[in-house]
C-alpha cells in the first residue's frame, strides 16, 4: 500500500474509472466526464422501466449516495482536494444494480468498501482492484447469508438487451477499448464450448450467463476500467483472456459468481506483473543510462 502523498499520480480532474474518457473527439470532450454516468444511468433506466430490475429505488439511491459521500470525504481527508464524483457515481450505481439483498445495510457497506478500497489498497499510487468488483466480491465472501448478485435477464424482450450491447459497443469502440470486450466475449464463447465438453451440459446453458445484464455491466464497466487494467493493448487482450480462463475454472468448480471472482484475482495480479515488468525496464534503462552517459548528455 502506498502513502497518500503518491496520490498526486491520480489525475485530479479526470473522472477516471471508465475508458470513455479516452479517444473521444475534442468537440465532445466537454461531455466526456458525463458519458459513463449517462450510459450506466441509461442501462439502469432501460432495465428498470422495462422490467423493474432494481430491488428498490431507495436501495440504489442509498448505494449511490454512500459511494459519492465516501469519495468526497476520503478525497478531502487524504488528498485535500475536491474529487470528480463521476467515478463514485458509477461505483454506487453498479452496486445498486448488481447487489441483491433484502436489507439496506449491505448497500451502504458495499458502496463504502468499494470506494475505500481505492484509497487503501494501493501500490505505488495505483489502486489494484476495480472498486465495485472489490466491494461486491467482499460482500459475497463475507456476507453470503445476506447478499447475492443480480442473476436475471432482461425479461423476454431482446430489444433492451440489444440496445445496451450496441450502444455500449459503440462507445467502447470510440474509447478504443473495444478490443478488451471483444477478446473477453470471444474467449468466453470459445471456453463455453470447452466447458460444455467437460461437463456434458448443453452448450447453450454455458452460453446462457453472458446474455444477462450482469455481464453487460461486467464487460462495459469492470474489465475495461482504465485504472485497473494494464496499459498495453496486447496486454489488455491477454488479461481479458485470462479473466475468461480463470472464470472457466471457477465455473468448473461450480462457483456462482465466477466472473466477479475471476476479475478479483486476475485484475490485481496482472497489474502487479505489469508494475514488476515496468520496474525492471526502468532499472534496466537507468543502468544503461549510467553505463552509457554520453548517450544522454550530448
Amino acid at each position, binding site marked *: 500500500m502506498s502513502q497518500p502523498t503518491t496520490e498526486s499520480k491520480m489525475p485530479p480532474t479526470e473522472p477516471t474509472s471508465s475508458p470513455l474518457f479516452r479517444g473521444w473527439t475534442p468537440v465532445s470532450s466537454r461531455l466526456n466526464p458525463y458519458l459513463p454516468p449517462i450510459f450506466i444511468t441509461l442501462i439502469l433506466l432501460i432495465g428498470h422501466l422495462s422490467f423493474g430490475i432494481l430491488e428498490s429505488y431507495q436501495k440504489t439511491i442509498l448505494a449511490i449516495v454512500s459511494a459519492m459521500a465516501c469519495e468526497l470525504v476520503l478525497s478531502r481527508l487524504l488528498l485535500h482536494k475536491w474529487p470528480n464524483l463521476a467515478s463514485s457515481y458509477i461505483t454506487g450505481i453498479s452496486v445498486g444494480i448488481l447487489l441483491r439483498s433484502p436489507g439496506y445495510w449491505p448497500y451502504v457497506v458495499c458502496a463504502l468498501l468499494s470506494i475505500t478500497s481505492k484509497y487503501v489498497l494501493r501500490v505505488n499510487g495505483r489502486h489494484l482492484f476495480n472498486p465495485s468488483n472489490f466491494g461486491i466480491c467482499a460482500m459475497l465472501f463475507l456476507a453470503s447469508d445476506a447478499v447475492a448478485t443480480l*442473476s436475471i435477464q432482461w425479461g423476454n424482450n431482446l430489444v433492451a438487451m440489444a440496445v445496451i450491447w450496441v450502444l455500449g459497443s459503440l462507445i467502447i469502440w470510440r474509447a478504443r477499448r473495444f478490443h478488451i470486450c471483444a477478446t473477453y466475449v470471444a474467449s468466453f464463447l470459445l471456453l463455453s464450448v470447452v466447458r460444455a465438453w467437460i461437463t456434458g451440459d448443453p452448450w447453450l446453458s454455458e452460453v446462457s450467463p453472458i446474455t444477462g445484464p450482469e455481464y453487460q455491466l461486467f464487460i462495459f464497466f469492470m474489465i475495461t476500467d482504465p485504472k485497473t487494467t494494464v496499459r498495453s493493448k496486447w496486454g489488455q487482450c491477454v488479461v481479458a483472456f485470462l479473466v475468461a480462463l480463470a472464470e472457466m475454472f471457477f465455473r468448473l468448480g461450480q462457483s456462482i459468481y465466477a466472473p466477479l471472482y475471476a476479475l478479483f484475482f486476475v485484475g490485481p495480479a496482472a497489474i502487479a506483473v505489469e508494475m514488476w515488468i515496468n520496474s525492471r525496464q526502468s532499472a534496466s534503462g537507468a543502468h544503461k543510462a549510467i553505463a552509457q552517459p554520453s548517450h544522454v548528455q550530448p
Partner: protein
Amino acid sequence: MRQIPWARIAVSIFFVGLLATPAVMRWRLAQRTLAAHSTLDRQAALARHGFYLEEVSHAAGIDFVHQAPTLDAKLNPIMPEVASMGASVSIVDFDRDGWPDIYVTNSAEGSKNHLYRNMHDGTFKDVAEELGVADVNQPGTGVSMGAVWGDYDNDGYEDLFLIKWGRPELFHNDHGHGFTRVSEKAGLPPWINANTAVWFDYDGDGLLDLFVGGYYPEDVDLWHLKNTRMMPDSFEYAKNGGRKYLFHNLGNGKFEEISAKVGIDSRRWALAASAADLRGTGHPDLFIANDYGVSELYLNDGKRFHEAGQQTGVGFAPKSGMNVAFGDILNDGHFAVYVSNISENGALIQGNNLWVPKEGAPANTVSFENLARDMGVELGGWSFGAQFGDLNNDGTLDLYLTNGYVSLDRTRSYWYDFTKIAGGNSSIIGDARDWPAMDGRSLSGYQQKHVWLNDGAGRFVDVAQAVGVTDTYDGRAVAMADLWNRGVLDVVVANQRGPLLLYKNTVAPGNHWIEFNLRGVKSNRSAIGAEVELRWNDQKQIQEVSGGSGFSAQNDRRLHFGLGKNVQLKSAVIHWPSGKVQTMDSLIPDKLYTIEEPQ
C-alpha cells in the same frame, strides 16, 4: 522526522471495520435466531413458548406418502424440478358432523387421493375410495395439484374442486354420503395446468364463484410434449404461463368463464392465490403470488377487477411467489399478506414478503410496505406454504412456514447450474433442453421449517425446533384446524414425495380461545368471505372465512381466536358477504359458536 499519516491510518481502520461489519451482522442474526435452533423437551417448550407440536400422523391412522408425477421423458434430466409440486392438504367437514376432515392429493398417474374422515377419537379413516374422490389421477386426465372446498349450490355441504395439471374436476357433495363428478355439467374446460384455485363470491350474489390460476399454459400436455419449449421465458419476468379463469356461478350448477370480461387477464405463472376484503369495501380482493415474476393484486369493485400490484406496492420487485396468507398480525383490524419466495445463502436472497398495510390510506384504498425483515419473517429458505394462526392462544397470530424444494443427494447441489440457466435469455431458459441435468443433486433440500411466534410487539421469533417441528421434508402445503375440537390449532403439512404430517398441538393451560362456525343464508352457505371482528380486553382482531389460502391449501372454515389470559370479551361483529352486519355481545370464552346469518 517522518510525519505519522494519521488520516491514512484512520481510513485503514475504517476499511477493516467495514470488512468486519458482515461478521457483526451475522452474529446479531445468530443471536436472534438462537431459539430456532435449540430443541426443548415438551415441558420446557410449554413453559417457554406456551405450546408444543407433536407429530402424530401414524398414531392417528394416517400413513400417507405423496407420490410425485412422472412427466414426459423429454423432461427426465430435470424431472425432479419440474415435477416438484402436487402435495396439498385441505380441511373440510364434508359430512357436517362437527369434526374437521382432511383431504390430501397424490400426483403420480394412477395414484389415489385420500379423504380422511375424523373418527372423533383421535384417529382418521380414509373414505375417499368409497365416496368417489380417490381415483382421480388416471392416465390421460392429468394429476392432482390441490383441492379447495366450497358449497357452490348452497345445499349445506361442501363441494370439492380439484386443481390439476390436467382435467379440472368439480365434485358435488351428496350430503356427505358420496360425491358426484359434475365437471362437464358445470362447464369447466377440458384442461388446465393449475396450482391454485379459490372459492369466493366476487359479486356478492350469494353464490360462490371460482378463480383458477394457470401455471403451465393450458395447451401443454406435460405427459405428451410436442416440444420442450414449455419452461418460463424468464426467471423473474415470465409472462408465458397459463391463463387465469374466473368461473361465475350461474346458480344452476353451471359456471360461466368471465375472467377477461371482469379485468383478469394475465399469463404470469400463478402458484398461489387467495381472496379477502383488504380495503373494507365489502368486496373480496384477489391476491395472486406468481412464480417467476411480480405478485398481482386485483382490487374488486363488486363488478370488475383492477390490477393494482404496482400501485399498492406489492407488484414492484419480481420474485418467486409461492404463498398467499392473510392475517391481522398487529391486532389493528387490517390484514397483512405473507408471500413466500426463495432465499439460499450464497446464491439467491429474495426474501419472503410480509405486506403490511400502511397507515393513513384514504378510504377504500390500500398501500403496503414489506416489513418481513423488520418483523423477522424474511428468510425461510426455499419457502412454500405458510399460514397464520394463534398457536399458543396468546391473542396474536403466529406464522407456520414450510419449505425445501428438492431433497436428493445431500452432498451435491444443483444451485450453480440453476443460476447459470436462470440468468439466460428467454430463448435459452424457455427450452427444457437447454437446462443442465440434475443428476440426483439437491436444490435447497433438507431445510429446517419455521414456526414464528408473534410477540405482539411487532416481532416474530422462530421457535420451530423448540416446539417440536424438526422435520426436513420438502414441505409444500400447510393447513390449520382444531382437528379434535379442543380449542387449539393443530397443523397439517403435506410434503412432496414425503409423508403427510399431523402436528397435534398442546397449549399450556391458562390461555383462552373462542371459535366461530359461520353459515350463510343470504350469503353463500359456506360463509366464505364473512369477516369476524372480535374485541376483547384492549385488543381487536379480524379474521375472514377463506375459500383457499397458503400454497395448495385450505384451512378449516371455522375461525379460531386465541385470547390470552384474564379475558374480558366485548363483542364480535360479523360482516357477512351479503352486506349484513351482525353484532354479538355476551360472548364467553373457550367456546365454539355456530352462527347462522340472520334473515
